[in-house]
């Protein structure tokens, strides 16, 4: 039956998947839609006149920072300008929404054994993957329509609005496909999500390089991106150029890549057993080494794989970002007008220092993702029932917690150090400016640590007080910090709201002076929130099962 009808039962599974995600996906879709609406609406207030818009577009096209972080300038229309700036955040959120949903309905089900139960029913071999894809690709179509509506609701033309919806939905499709492949190759949900996260990083870097090396056109108002942008799905999202060129044919690129990824995932499904990955499990030692036998030793064993994967990623990511500094320097040397323009915006700051600081602000946020992930591991130990036999031995709750805290805290600092060093050393090797590069990047990276750890403190508090909601609350907090950091100024959010994000308080070292006050406050917040989490966890029931 399964060989002849590999998709049997898919429709029932789609309905099951919709039922399971009836809250999660609508919340994601509504959040991204409202965010889109707000970005476009507040952009109109930032640049009210035609003259403002032309000046801003000219600067965006020539400013290397905008090219790296936002994308290619696409003319002086309100729609195009707001979407170029907002797309990076919409794309990251949509990619995360899609990848997590795919993994939730594929690999995560295999890990928990739910898939086995379904696999015993008259359900075809490809039915679960098919159902997950129907759900997520469908959710992205809905998201495309709602974001287009949100753009048009600001009084903009529908044609450009649909193009914007296509950019968002297409990005979601591709990362759904990436996650589908990841879920077949790796045997854990965590690993599959990491594949999607890594792909997102690569896509960002390729687009940043392509746009940094682009050429100005259209009387200085737009940028023609270099070829690396075309290797990146995030690049495609920008190359649709809503309200400028509305290149519909790029939809074909999204569909073709998604189809190819789905085909690979389906092929891999045929070649492996349920529950296993492509990498077979090896045998292990018959006895435990003495390094394993302590709460810290076990925590290290549980956490080391994730930390190692993050270390490699930030090292590569950091090195690539550092290497862009060279192009940036050359560009600034050749373009006296751009230099003047940028200096007029921030007369005190050294431009390269600003570059170090902005790069590391983004890296700091990514490293906070590690902090959250590493600390939430405690919750998954609890949910799965693995914590129970451990706490039935002579290990106290505080001792167990501290093992994970040490690794998550030290891991965060280590990640920031490595990314700062990787960026600094590549930058130094290319430009010869070793001290400025290494010193600047390292300072800019390490100053992020207190903010990441303060977010970690929040994870602990929620883990202690609301264990069932630990994952959704803390991941939402990280997403909110991303939105505030990248779009806070544009959205004209009130200062008190921005102040909630720990990253708002991080000084732009080395472009700005180091301010001990806020940094000390962040450290204090991390310690207090952490202590609150430890104290509440010691007083509560173990909550096993989600």
């Amino acid at each position, binding site marked *: 039956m399964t060989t002849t009808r590999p998709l049997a039962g898919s429709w029932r599974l789609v309905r099951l998947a919709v039922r399971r995600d009836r809250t999660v996906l609508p919340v994601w879709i509504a959040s991204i839609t409202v965010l889109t609406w707000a970005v476009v609406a507040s952009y109109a207030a930032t640049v009210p006149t035609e003259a403002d818009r032309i000046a801003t577009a000219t600067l965006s096209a020539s400013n290397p920072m905008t090219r790296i972080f936002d994308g290619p300038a696409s003319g002086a229309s309100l729609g195009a300008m707001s979407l170029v700036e907002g797309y990076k955040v919409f794309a990251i959120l949509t990619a995360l929404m899609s990848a997590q949903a795919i993994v939730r309905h594929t690999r995560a089900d295999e890990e928990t054994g739910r898939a086995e139960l379904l696999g015993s029913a008259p359900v075809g071999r490809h039915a679960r993957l098919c159902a997950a894809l129907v759900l997520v690709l469908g959710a992205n179509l809905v998201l495309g329509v709602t974001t287009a509506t949100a753009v048009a609701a600001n009084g903009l033309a529908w044609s450009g609005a649909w193009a914007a919806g296509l950019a968002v939905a297409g990005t979601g499709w591709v990362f759904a496909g990436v996650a589908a492949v990841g879920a077949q190759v790796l045997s854990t949900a965590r690993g599959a999500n990491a594949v999607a996260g890594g792909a997102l990083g690569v896509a960002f870097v390729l687009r940043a390089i392509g746009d940094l090396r682009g050429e100005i056109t259209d009387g200085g108002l737009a940028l023609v991106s270099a070829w690396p942008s075309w290797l990146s799905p995030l690049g495609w999202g920008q190359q649709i150029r809503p309200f400028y060129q509305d290149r519909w044919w790029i939809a074909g690129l999204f569909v073709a890549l998604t189809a190819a990824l789905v085909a690979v995932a389906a092929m891999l499904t045929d070649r492996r057993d349920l529950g296993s990955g492509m990498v077979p499990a090896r045998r*292990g030692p*018959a006895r*435990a080494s003495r390094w*394993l*036998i302590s709460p810290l030793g076990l925590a290290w064993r549980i956490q080391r794989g994730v930390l190692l994967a993050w270390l490699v990623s930030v090292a590569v990511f950091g090195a690539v970002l550092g290497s862009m500094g060279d192009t940036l320097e050359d560009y600034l040397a050749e373009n006296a007008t751009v230099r003047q323009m940028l200096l007029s915006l921030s007369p005190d700051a050294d431009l390269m220092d600003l570059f170090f600081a902005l790069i590391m602000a983004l890296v700091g946020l990514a490293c906070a993702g590690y902090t959250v992930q590493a600390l939430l591991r405690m919750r998954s130990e609890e949910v*799965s029932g693995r914590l129970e036999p451990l*706490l039935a031995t002579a290990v106290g709750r505080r001792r167990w917690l501290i093992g994970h805290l040490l690794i998550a805290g030290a891991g965060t600092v280590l990640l920031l150090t490595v990314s700062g060093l990787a960026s600094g050393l590549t930058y130094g090797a290319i430009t010869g400016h070793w001290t400025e590069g290494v010193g600047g990047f390292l300072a800019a990276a390490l100053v992020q640590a207190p903010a990441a750890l303060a977010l970690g403190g929040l994870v602990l508090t929620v883990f202690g007080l609301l264990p069932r909601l630990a994952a959704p609350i803390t991941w939402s907090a990280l997403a909110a910090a991303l939105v505030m950091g990248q779009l806070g100024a544009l959205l004209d959010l009130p200062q008190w709201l921005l102040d909630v994000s720990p990253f708002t308080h991080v000084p732009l070292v080395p472009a700005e002076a180091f301010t001990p006050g806020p940094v000390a406050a962040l450290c204090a917040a991390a310690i207090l929130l952490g202590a609150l989490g430890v104290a509440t966890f010691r007083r509560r*029931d173990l909550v096993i099962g989600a």
Partner: protein
Amino acid sequence: MEHVIRTQGLVKAFGRTQALNGLDLEVGRGEVHGFLGPNGAGKSTTIRVLLGLLRKDGGHATLLGGDPWRDAVSLHRRLAYVPGDVQLWPNLSGGEAIDLLGALRGPVDVGRRDELVERFQLDPTKRCSTYSKGNRQKVAIVAGLASDVELYLLDEPTSGLDPLMETVFQEVVHEITARGGTVLLSSHILTEAEALCDRVSIIRDGRIVEQGTLASLRHLTRTTLHVTTRHPLDGLDGLPGVHDVVTTHDRRAAGFEVEADHLDGVVQHLGGIGVLTLTSAPPTLEELFLRHYGSEPARPDGTDVPATPRPRRARTSR
């Protein structure tokens, strides 16, 4: 008798669901105490309260003379726990998991550990992610039973074991009691409880409904008799303590149940009729159990027991 476990009026609620409802449990030193009840009756919740993993809402609980919540760590050095549904770290080998769980409690008797690994036919070099449920269960059993402690809390320890391994498990429990260890064995496998337990407590809806030795509990229930007689059987229905009489057409053969207290009277009555054959079957634990959970209102003292247990949503018990 010295009590290793003693709870009085133990109460635990999860939201609106009352999991433990005034539970009184007493386990004496050196005994194997069966803790019997269907799924969702509150067995695992009780054991988790005794382990300090859940916090009681009311009542008293002492374990090895200490407070299970406050003294958790020091008490855990003196006990071993085997959960019913063992989850292990997928990237650790079985041997590593055994050593880890054993050594975090206290010193491990390596010889005993190796002996149990051998007897339970466990391959300790395989990754935990590749173990079947039965093999995961063996890991927890070896880790728990290899340690020489005062008290063993076993929560449906043999679920997933094959009958051969079940026999090995029973042997090992006998060895433990021979050393003077105390065992609380939660189970719904009644043959296992009959083979191992000195005393049992039956839990229903978060409350102990029967407690005592197997013999005393049997005394509370009915013996099944099958009899053939020379003369017609008359007047059986009218005798006190006789139930469920089924007779043949010629009224010279019958099967029926007799309450233990009235057995004497029934035998005297039968003596007058001329008994040809008589078989008597003592109540099995299963009958005992069904009497408490089945459809019959069957307390010997006549109190009514509801037909089926209330459905409950137990969040933390399996």
